[in-house]
């Protein structure tokens, strides 16, 4: 309360001044002097105090409803996390917490009786927060986000759980990718990439040119087959093709191009500085070589943050063009890997040539992060006949939940928890179906559109996420109620300055008059 620091000294000053005036032997014009003192001190205080004047503004529409200003509710005001993850993906919770209490609040993410991550929100602040963990389970699990008040003095009994909410997460098992690597020369980069992919259950076939019309073949987690000639039938069995410019000859290029453009095959090209002809795969990614050819450590960044440093000699940069997305860039925003779309397929171009050194130096996590990003950007999407979307951000018990179904099936039979769900077809998008479900009990809900394919979603208790519920209600209210708005304008200080000068001048002049008389 800063105003108390102004009022109290002012009162003390006023008392002192009045006492001096009363004690003065010459008691002429005592009342006037006292009044002048009061005015002087009061105006001095008003100069210091942040005074405001309320102005009533008429609303644009003539709806005479008064508006009550409300404090933002304390607690978790916003929250987001992906409810469906793939195995190995990190779980990241982001939100905003309003701590209006006098104690700091610790936000704690726990799961399986273990504390996984925590962050402390200081007293009286409203801050965004991020909590991270890597789920180890496969299938469904609920984590727990709890807000615990931290007393200033650590005493066991005083720790108070303010809020507690389940964090449901479904982790989907990975489907291995099928990857074809065509290389113009043997190198470490492809060798390490293939063995990393093979170790984790992906199918890898690699053809490496070792001399004129001589190839070395590698098959990991698959049987041998003919790789001498790349045919459309062969390509359609793969999700992804990793290659470089010299390895693609013109006869094979045609079938690869058709596969990419029409069937959605992913293509990752390892670019080098040698300027090749303009082909479909390098047209969107013009290259520039760095002026500085010396070897240096380049710190790489991705959209999810800093990835790690890589020793590079004469790096080659990709010039950003409209229609391409930068995936990996350095501290000076030079793009080192970018993705683009070609027909139905995706193209990824990378100039990283020695990422295997990460594996050699034991920096496995960075290698996996970067290559997972590049591979899954390009990989041919998995065909699904049915996809469910939950339209409500935080579904609650006994509240309507919008469910959307995307499918090519005519009139799909859908059930939720065994009860049939009536779906309405979208007017413009014929493959989109919409239905409303009222969950009757909290917990996991099973949405089934085709037998054997269950999509799980979670319904929360009515009293979970209280602050978000309050904010949602307020938002709905404020849409309806737009009343006259009172805005506060600061009062001009000049009036108080004038009053102070007048009062002080009177006191000064009065003393001089008293002397002369």
């Amino acid at each position: 309360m800063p105003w108390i620091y102004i009022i109290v000294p002012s009162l003390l000053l006023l008392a002192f001044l009045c006492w001096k005036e009363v004690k003065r032997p010459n008691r002429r014009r005592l009342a006037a002097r006292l009044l002048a003192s009061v005015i002087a001190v009061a105006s001095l205080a008003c100069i210091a105090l942040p005074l405001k004047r309320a102005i009533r503004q008429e609303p644009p529409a003539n709806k005479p409803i008064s508006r009550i200003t409300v404090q933002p509710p304390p607690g978790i005001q916003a929250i987001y996390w992906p409810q469906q993850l793939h195995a190995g993906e990190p779980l990241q919770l982001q939100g905003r917490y309003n701590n209006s209490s006098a104690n700091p609040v610790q936000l704690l993410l726990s799961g399986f009786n273990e504390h996984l991550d925590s962050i402390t929100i200081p007293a009286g602040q409203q801050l965004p927060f991020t909590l991270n963990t890597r789920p180890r389970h496969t299938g469904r699990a609920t984590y727990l986000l709890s807000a615990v008040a931290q007393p200033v003095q650590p005493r066991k009994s005083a720790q108070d759980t303010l809020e507690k909410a389940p964090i449901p997460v479904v982790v989907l098992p990975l489907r291995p990718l099928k990857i074809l690597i065509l290389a113009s020369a043997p190198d470490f980069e492809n060798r390490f990439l293939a063995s990393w992919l093979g170790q984790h259950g992906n199918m890898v076939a690699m053809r490496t040119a070792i001399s004129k019309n001589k190839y070395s073949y590698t098959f990991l987690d698959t049987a041998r087959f003919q790789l001498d000639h790349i045919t459309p039938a062969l390509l359609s069995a793969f999700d992804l093709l990793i290659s470089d410019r010299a390895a693609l000859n013109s006869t094979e290029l045609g079938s690869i191009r058709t596969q990419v453009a029409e069937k959605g095959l992913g293509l990752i090209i390892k670019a080098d500085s040698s300027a090749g002809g303009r082909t479909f795969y390098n047209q969107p990614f013009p290259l520039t070589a760095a002026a500085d050819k010396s070897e240096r450590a380049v710190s790489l960044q991705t959209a999810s943050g800093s990835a790690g440093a890589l020793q590079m000699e004469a790096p080659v940069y990709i010039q950003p063009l409209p229609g391409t997305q930068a995936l990996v860039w350095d501290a000076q925003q030079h793009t080192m890997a970018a993705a683009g779309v070609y027909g139905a397929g995706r193209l990824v171009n990378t100039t990283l040539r020695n990422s295997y050194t990460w594996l050699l130096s034991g920096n496995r996590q960075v290698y996996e992060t970067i290559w997972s990003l590049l591979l899954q950007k390009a990989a041919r999407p998995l065909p699904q006949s049915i996809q469910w979307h939950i339209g409500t951000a935080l579904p609650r018990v006994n509240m309507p939940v919008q469910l959307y179904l995307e499918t090519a099936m005519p009139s799909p039979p859908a059930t939720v928890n065994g009860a049939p769900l009536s779906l309405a077809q979208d007017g413009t998008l014929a493959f989109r179906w919409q239905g409303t479900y009222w969950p009757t009990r909290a917990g996991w809900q099973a949405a089934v559109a085709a037998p054997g394919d269950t999509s799980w979603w979670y319904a929360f208790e009515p009293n979970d996420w209280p602050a978000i519920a309050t904010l949602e209600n307020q938002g709905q209210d404020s849409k309806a109620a737009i009343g006259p708005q009172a805005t506060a304008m600061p009062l001009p200080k000049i009036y108080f300055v004038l009053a102070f000068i007048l009062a002080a001048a009177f006191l000064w002049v009065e003393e001089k008059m008293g002397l002369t008389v």
Partner: protein
Amino acid sequence: MAEQTPIHMIHAFGQRWQLYRLISRILLALTIAAVVSGIIYMVHGSPWWALPVTVAALLGLLLPARSWRVTENDVIRYFNVTYPELEESAGLLLQPQDNLALLEQLQAAKIRQALTGIHPQPPLRTQLRLSIWAFIAGIMLAAAAFRWGPLPAPHTLKSGRPAKTAAINETRPPEIAAVTITIQPPAYTGKSKRQQQQLGLEVEEGATVFWQLHTNQAAASLSLVFNDSLRLPLQPTDKTATLWEGRTTIARNGFYQLQLGGKLSDLYKISIIKDQPPVITIQTPKPYTTIDYGEPQRVALKLNVTDDYGITGATIQATVASGSGEAVKFKEQPIAFDASFGGARTQYALEKSLNLAALGMEPGGELYFYIQATDNHRQTARSGVYMVVLPDTAQLMNIEGMANSLNLKPEYFRSQRQIIIETEQLIRDKDTLSEKLFKSRSNDLGIDQRLLRLRYGKFLGEETETNIGDERVSDEDHDHQSNDAKDFNNAEKIIDQFSHKHDIAEDATFFDPETKSQLKATLTEMWNAELRLRTFKPQEALPYEYKALRLLKDLQQKSRAYVAKTSVKTPPLKPEKRLTGELDRIITPVTQRGYEQGSAATDQLAYALAVLETLKTGGGASSPNLASDPNAIPGPSGLKILQQAAQQMSRQATANPARYLAALQAMRQLITALEQRQPADAAAITLAAQSIYSLLPAPARLPFAGNLTTGISLSQQYFMNLNQP
């Protein structure tokens, strides 16, 4: 009692004073006791410390020589000091009248009059008041301490794994009436036999455990099952078959169960206390020691050997290397310590002085040694290898490679080698020289050493009071000015004469920091040598001189560069010949490999977590991917996943029973309940899930493909129209 005699009055006053004093002492003692007990209560939380503390405080303040007593002498002294009208004579009143002289009698009569006029206040009344206040304050402090209770104990393991090492609350099968387990620790521990009543074991490695189990009623068979695999049948020893006995030796961690008839009990842990190998800590010498010429050829070895049960022996394994080049010879010899090792003591502080000459070390030789210690379980430990080097000074003194170079040094420099030679000569001649001559020659050598030091100091940019070889300096020394007429107008010469010339700046930056630091070390040795020479101790100066010479030699060696042989010239390539070889015979290399998916076991555990989650939240699914009716117990596939997870946990529990045994028990309880189609215990689910979670490694980040709904004709039409030119 106005007419009391002075003696009576003094006596009564003394008693009152003593009472005050006693009360204030007691109050002080109680105050101290209250405050100390309050602090102890806050720290330890036990109020019972108050009693001994109070007693101790009372005894400590009252007992020593009964310090609270007030004698008549104290009273007299007090009166004399406090009341001037008594004229320092109050002591007369106590003495019998007859003993007093006339003057004293007169004075006594006067004093007696004065004494009736004063109303003495006992001293220390203020002290009494103070102690009362202190007592009140102390009591309040103590009351506050007891009111707010003890300080919370520091949280050692606040987060992380709270329940992992939780004790297993042992439950015996109801048929077992009493258990007596006798543990005979192995002989090497030196521990005696002990008994315990609980079934969980914590024993020394190799201990013999003897079970005696009483059953309520006659049992058909009773056996122990170790780690789910090994069975130890117990033998009945009485006729009613209620007392069963069995014995085995425990050699590794794990767990065991009782099998009574066909029924298995809970799991009981077996944890092993392993014997640690001895620990050797060498205090002196350093790992690498150089003994310079002139220093005593001894190495003082000082070390500590500790073990958890006892040490049976420790030896020094010394290897002496002598000779150089291809003629290096090694001689190994064990050296025993003087101490005798009984095997009972767990710690030895050992000392040994190694005489290098006795070991047969010559200049240029090296001694490697390490310490080997054995404990009474025949476990041995070795220290690191330490090295003592005796440098060959003959190498330093030879002037090979320098013979051809011209000696351009001015003659007033003596080289370090020359100084050494002369010092040795001086030591040899010491007996034949007079003391004065000896001292003066030693001092001269010190001056030579100093000049050499100053010369090298120049390279470091050191300024000296006298610059050697500087003309100006010699001029000053000889105290004559050259009044050459042609120099009369030479301003530079005059400036030179009166200015303080710094050393050439280039000298200071000429060398790289490493060379400079070595040069500095050389100068330090020279300083030390000069100090000894100037204080007439040439014998002590010799090691420093040698060290300085060695460092100088090293510096010389450093400036020599090594140029490697250049490679041979290759003939130029013929581009037209490249890639024209015959490749028909070259076979196509094909590598095929199927990686064994080591993650299958991990995947099972990951799925088990989902099954447990289903059990907990009651979502109901036969497996995490298949839908079924809600509120159901996992079907056969879910149960199978749990059983496989339990097998993996059992393996972990064998290795680390303290951490995983409770979870394994919970998991088995869970599976049993599910097999009987009963709801599972929530606490058991939590415990099992937590332990499975901690068993799972953090998953690797792997690529995956996105999803695309197929068969949507609208999107396909859109795509086709986009592609049309």
